[in-house]
């Protein structure tokens, strides 16, 4: 059972967290033309790296959305990034 550090709450049981996706994806501006390929890449393309990964997670009890860097082989947590300044 892993411990993940929520930038607001601190270390918590992994079952309190929800995986939201790999980091680095930006929603295309749908007010402009978006090609099928670009939209499909946004929806479905995953890097699925072995080793160091950057991901977006949500801590469900406090609903904090944040970035987490992990190692997908050793399960080591390498760091987190808060996306927000409020309450700091």
């Amino acid at each position: 059972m892993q411990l993940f550090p929520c930038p607001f709450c601190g270390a918590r049981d992994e079952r309190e967290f929800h995986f939201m996706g790999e980091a680095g994806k930006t929603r295309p501006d749908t007010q402009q033309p978006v090609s099928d390929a670009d939209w499909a890449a946004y929806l479905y393309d995953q890097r699925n790296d072995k080793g160091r990964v950057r991901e977006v997670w949500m801590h469900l009890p406090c609903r904090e959305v944040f970035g987490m860097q992990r190692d997908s082989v050793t399960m080591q947590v390498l760091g987190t990034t808060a996306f927000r300044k409020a309450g700091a």
Partner: protein
Amino acid sequence: MRDDGRKWDAPPEYSQPLTGAGVRAARVWPQRQVLISAPDVLARIEAAGWPGVVRGDSYALSLRRDRVLEVDGPPRDEGWDGRQAVTEVTDAYAVIQIEGPQALALCRRGTELSLSHPSRSVARQMFGLPVFLYRWQTEDRFRLHTPRGYGQALWQTLAAHMRQMRP
């Protein structure tokens, strides 16, 4: 389309507290619970995290970086007032108080919990249920708020664990 009513216990009689070895649990009924959200809410309202001990009859709990739950505070207008968002949730959370020398041990059956691991939020999962957990008035008295629909499950879970807390 089945009648599964008999598989589920009817709601418990909350007037009877649960007692176990060194721990006692009872339902409590706050007069008012209010969610207050704003970017600066934690700077304006003193709100408890873990494992701080809440003192006073009216208090606020830190839930998120921009949200507190005010318990037994003054009446407030609901909605967005230009500075904060306010919603009354008095009946949304059932509150169970557990106390006694074994109260912390009972809580630790529900999740990894330590007085030496502080948290800025009282929100967590215990026994698989969403709760707000904090200490109230004394060091060995804890309060758990859980969504009202899960109040019964939390009550039965505490009772089941208290039966296990024999030497």
